[in-house]
C-alpha cells in the first residue's frame, strides 16, 4: 500500500514539467561506497581563499591594521580545529576588550575540551579563571558582570549541565532588558557550552538542549558547524547586544579542521547559510548533523550497491538545498521559507528528541508560510523521545541513513 502511494507520487513528480532533478552533490563519492566523514567533508574550507571568502564574513579591524573591509589580499589563515578556533576568538576578544573575562569550571588549565588552553597564561588569572563548581553561580555571576557593561564569556562544561543555570538564563539573562525598561541589559554575556553526541556519552553527555531555550525571547542561541564558523560566530556573539548561548558540537572540536582567518571577523547572527543550493528539497540542520546530511546527499545521488535498491533512480538527480541554520534563536525564517517555496519539500534534522525539539517550531511556521507550495509534509528526523541511551546511541541519534530515508520518502511522497 505504501509503495503504491510512492510510485503514484513519483509519477506525478515526473509529469510536472521542469522538475527534472539535477545532481547537487559537489562531486561523486569515491568508488567503494566511502562516506565523507567530517575530516573529508567538502563543506570544510581547507584553502586560504575559500576560508577568506566565507559567506557573509565581515572584517572588524578597528585598528586599521589589516586591509579594508572586503579585500582579502594580505589576509592570512591558519590551520585550526574547532577548539583552536574557539580559543582564537576568545583570545581576540580578551586582547581587544579590557573588560572581557573568561571563566568557568576548569578553564584556567585549558578546559576539559582545551578551548581555553594558554589563555590564563597569556592574559592572567584575573581575566581567565576557574570558578567553583556551580553553574547557577557561573550564569548569575556573568549576568552581574554584563549588567555592569563588562564582557562576560562564561563556559558551562557540558550543555547537559546547563540546567542548574536555567533559572538565571531564562528568567534573568533573557528578561533583563525587558524588565528594566531598557535601563539595564546583559548583552555582553556569552555562555559557551559543548553540545550534542559523540557516540558513547549516554544520558548526560549527549544532549542537545537548544530546544529548552526556544521560549526564552531575549536570548540568542548559536551553534557553529566548523572552525571558521565557530570563530566568526563566537566573536559576533560576544559583541552582540544580546545574551547568547553558544553551543559547540563537541565531536567537531578535533575532527573539524579548516583554514581559519587569523584576523578579527564576524559572521552574521540570525542568518542561515545555504551550503549547497538546490531546487527539489530543502534539508535544514545545524551542528554535527550537517555532516550526516552531506553524507546523505551523497548516498541519494550515488547510492552504494546495497542501498541502491532503496533509492529510486527517478530521484537520484534531485537537487538538495542543504542549509545550516547556525542561529537557532531567533532563526532565519526568511532564508528557510524562501528555500521551501522554491523546493516544496522540507526535511529538518536535529539530534535533540523529536518532541519539543526546535524542528517542531520551524515546521509550524513553514507550513503556515509555504502551505500552498508544499509538495510533501514537512519531515523531522530527530533523536527518539527517550533519554540518550548509551549502548543504543547509533540507533538513537539521526545518521546519514535516516536522513536519506526521510529524503526518499519526502521526494517520492
Amino acid at each position: 500500500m505504501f509503495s503504491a502511494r510512492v510510485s503514484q507520487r513519483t509519477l506525478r513528480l515526473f509529469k510536472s514539467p521542469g522538475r527534472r532533478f539535477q545532481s547537487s552533490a559537489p562531486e561523486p563519492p569515491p568508488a567503494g561506497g566511502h562516506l565523507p566523514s567530517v575530516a573529508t567533508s567538502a563543506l570544510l574550507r581547507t584553502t586560504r581563499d575559500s576560508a577568506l571568502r566565507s559567506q557573509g564574513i565581515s572584517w572588524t579591524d578597528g585598528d586599521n591594521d589589516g586591509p579594508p573591509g572586503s579585500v582579502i589580499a594580505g589576509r592570512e589563515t591558519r590551520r585550526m580545529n574547532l577548539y583552536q578556533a574557539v580559543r582564537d576568538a576568545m583570545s581576540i576578544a580578551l586582547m581587544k576588550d579590557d573588560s572581557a573575562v573568561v571563566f568557568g569550571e576548569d578553564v584556567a588549565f585549558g578546559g576539559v575540551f582545551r578551548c581555553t588552553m594558554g589563555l590564563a597564561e597569556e592574559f592572567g588569572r584575573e581575566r581567565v579563571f576557574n570558578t567553583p563548581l556551580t553553574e547557577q553561580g557561573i550564569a548569575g555571576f556573568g549576568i552581574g558582570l554584563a549588567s555592569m557593561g563588562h564582557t562576560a564569556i562564561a563556559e558551562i562544561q557540558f550543555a547537559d549541565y546547563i540546567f542548574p543555570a536555567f533559572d538565571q538564563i531564562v528568567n534573568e539573562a533573557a528578561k533583563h532588558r525587558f524588565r528594566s525598561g531598557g535601563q539595564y541589559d546583559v548583552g555582553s554575556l556569552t555562555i559557551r557550552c559543548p553540545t550534542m553526541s559523540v557516540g558513547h556519552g549516554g544520558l548526560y553527555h549527549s544532549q542537545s538542549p537548544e530546544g529548552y531555550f526556544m521560549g526564552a525571547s531575549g536570548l540568542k542561541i548559536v551553534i557553529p558547524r566548523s572552525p571558521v564558523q565557530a570563530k566568526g560566530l563566537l566573536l559576533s556573539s560576544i559583541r552582540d547586544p544580546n545574551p547568547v548561548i553558544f553551543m559547540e558540537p563537541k565531536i567537531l572540536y578535533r575532527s573539524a579542521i579548516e583554514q581559519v582567518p587569523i584576523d578579527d571577523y564576524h559572521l552574521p547572527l540570525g542568518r542561515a547559510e545555504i551550503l549547497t543550493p538546490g531546487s527539489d528539497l530543502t534539508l535544514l540542520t545545524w551542528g554535527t548533523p550537517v555532516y550526516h546530511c552531506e553524507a546523505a546527499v551523497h548516498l541519494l545521488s550515488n547510492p552504494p550497491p546495497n542501498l541502491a535498491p532503496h533509492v529510486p533512480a527517478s530521484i537520484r538527480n534531485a537537487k538538495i538545498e542543504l542549509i545550516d541554520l547556525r542561529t537557532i534563536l531567533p532563526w532565519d525564517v526568511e532564508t528557510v521559507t524562501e528555500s521551501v517555496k522554491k523546493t516544496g519539500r522540507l526535511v529538518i534534522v536535529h539530534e535533540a528528541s523529536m518532541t519539543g525539539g526546535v524542528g517542531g517550531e520551524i515546521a509550524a511556521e513553514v507550513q503556515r508560510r509555504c502551505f500552498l507550495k508544499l509538495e510533501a509534509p514537512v519531515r523531522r528526523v530527530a533523536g527518539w523521545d527517550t533519554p540518550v541511551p548509551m549502548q543504543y546511541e547509533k540507533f538513537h541519534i539521526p545518521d546519514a541513513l535516516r536522513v536519506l530515508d526521510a529524503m526518499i520518502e519526502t521526494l517520492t511522497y
Partner: protein
Amino acid sequence: MSRIPRISASVRASLARRTYASSTVQLPNEAHGHLPTSQSPITSKLHFFNSVMEEGKQIPTYRVLDGSGKLLEGAEVPEFDEALARRMYENMSRLPIIDNLLYNVQRQGKISFYMTAHGEEATLIGSAAALDPNDEVLGQYREMGVLLWRGFTYDEVMAQCFGNHEDTCTKGKQMPVHFGSRKYHFHPISSPLATQIPQAAGVGFALKRDPLRRGKNCAVVYFGEGAASEGDFHAGMLLASTVPSPTLFIARNNGFAISTPSSEQYHGDGIASRGPGYGIHTIRVDGNDILAVLSAVREGRRLCIEEGRGVLIEAMTYRVGHHSTSDDSFAYRPRQEVEDRKRIDNPISRFRLFLESRGWWSEQEEEKFKDEVRKEVMKAFKRGESLQRHALKEMFNDVYAGEEPWNIREQRQELWALLKKYGNVWEPWKNELKKHKGEGKELIEGDV
C-alpha cells in the same frame, strides 16, 4: 522607634525546643539580654567573626591511626574484631585491583570510560563498614567500594561497565561506573553533580515516615568537595536540618574537582565549616585512616538516626588517580606530588601495618589474597567482555510506566521498519546490531 515585637506562641515553642535540643551548648553571658526572637546575646563589642571554631583556629581532623598504622595517643580503637578488620582490609585491597584492570581496559578501547577511586579506599570502605546494609546510599560516582562491601559481585561490576545484557543497573543506558542497585539500597548514579544531595534529604524523610525503618536506617549521601559548591548541596543540607530528616552527608574531600584544586573551590574552612551554618552536627575526619572513618561514620549515623536530622562528615583524602579516563592530571599537578602522596599517605598500607602489628595479616596472606582477587576479577572481565548488549528493543523501555504514549510507540515502530529495510545493508547498523543480543534478528525478520 523600634518596638519589641511580641513573640508568638509557635516561636516561643520552637525556641524552647531549640534550647532543649542544644542544651550541651553553654549559654553565653547575657549581661545585655538577647534578641527577642532568638538566643543571640546582645553585645556592645563591634566584632566580625570568621570561624566556627575558637577564633582563628581551623576545624580539627579526627584521626585514630598515625601514618605508620600505630594508634594515636589518646585515640580509641573502634569496637571491632579480627574478622571485621580483615573484611575491611580485603575490600580496600580489592578496589585498586578492579580499578587498575578497568582503567587499562578503557585504554584499550574495550569500555568507553572509567573512574578509579585510588587513594580514597579508606573513606569508602570505612564508611561502608559503619553503615547498616539497609541504609539508603546515594553516591556521586566514585563509590563502587560501598557496593562491593554490600555484596555486589565482579560480574555485576563488569556487566555495568560493559553495558552487556546482564547489566541490571542501567540496562546499558548509562556510562560505565553509573551503578545502581535496589537490592543493595544503592540509588542510581546520575552524572549531573550534586543532584543526589537534596534527594537524600527526601530519602531520609521517607525512612522516618516508614514505621518499619524509622529509627533503624538513615539516608547516606556521598559527594565530592567540588559538588559541594552546587546549590543542590546547600539545599540538601538545609532541608535535612530544617524539615528535618535523618540524612548522613559524607563529603569526600580529595583535593580536586577535575583540575580545580580545593583551594579554588572554597575560601572557607573546607566543607565542614558549613555544617554548623545549617545547625548540623559536623566532624572532619582523616579520610585515609579507615578506623577514624569507621568511628566517625558510626557515631555520625547514630546521631543522625537518634535526632532524625542531618549530620555532616568531611573526609580528608587525596585523589591519587586521574579524574577519569578522559583526564590527564599531570597537565595541572606535578607527577611528584602524586607520587609523594601515594608513598607518604597510603590508606591501604597504613591499615595493613595496623593489622600486621596485631598479627591479623601477613605477607603470605597478602600475596594469596591478591592473587585470588586478580584471577576472579580477570575471569569476570573476560566473561563480561564476551557478552552481548541487551536486545535492541530495550532501548525504548522504561521511559514511562503504564500505557505507552503514542510517540514512543510510533517511534519504535519507525525504527523497526527502518531496520527491516536497511538492517542488513547499512554497514554502520549491521555492525552495531551484532553487538546486541539477538542481533536485531527479531526485528529484521520478525513481525513488528
